[in-house]
């Protein structure tokens, strides 16, 4: 889905932290230490950060600077953590957020946007 920019024509090769492991819903993934959790998830092809409370719709990165709070997830047990401004650390436990909990909704599957 998405990947790192190996070399940028203006910015060159970006300095990144060491590669660390973390988990998303129990699955082990890798990212660079210190980069926002959202960036690491993006590189791993993860688009959905949470499902909303009322309509159970998927949300992901929207503003990427900590303002819109769309990208919040459960990080090390703390819900509503803004993943776009929270730096990734070794061994972080990240969970998809359903409403404000880590428990998927009864309907299990995410609901698609309503079609007319």
């Amino acid at each position, binding site marked *: 889905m998405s990947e790192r920019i190996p070399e940028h024509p203006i910015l060159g090769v970006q300095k990144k932290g060491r590669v660390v492991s973390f988990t998303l819903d129990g699955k082990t993934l890798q990212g660079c230490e210190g980069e926002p959790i959202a960036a690491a998830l993006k590189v791993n092809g993860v688009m959905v950060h949470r499902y909303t409370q009322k309509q159970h719709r998927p949300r992901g990165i929207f503003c990427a600077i900590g*303002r*819109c*709070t769309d990208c919040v997830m459960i990080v090390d047990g703390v819900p*509503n953590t803004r993943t776009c401004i929270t730096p990734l650390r070794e061994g972080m436990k990240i969970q998809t957020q359903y409403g404000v909990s880590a428990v998927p909704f009864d309907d299990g599957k995410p609901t698609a946007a*309503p079609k007319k």
Partner: protein
Amino acid sequence: MNQVNDRNRDIGPFVPQPDDDQIICRCEEVTKGEIRRAVHDGMWTITEVRRCLRTGMGLCQGQTCAKLVKRIVAAELHIPQSELEPATSRAPMRPIEMRVFANEDGEVKTDE
């Protein structure tokens, strides 16, 4: 008189629109139809709509939807957007945990 204050003014009936189920306030998942309906139910100011539907009262504090809600309410009332007073600004300006809000500490450490 400011047209928002003249509550006897006839703003016409609520007419359903095809995009009424569109989300406007992303945080609180409030739709365009709900906002339009609230205006016809008598919520003529941003503050009233907010208290009624919680638009702009979620985690982002109206960062994204403030302008959108204003546009919808103004259109429904047939008034220019500038006649609508924006929502009150209050502390805390950003979402904050109560344990932090109550944790008043001394001085900001400076390197002086």
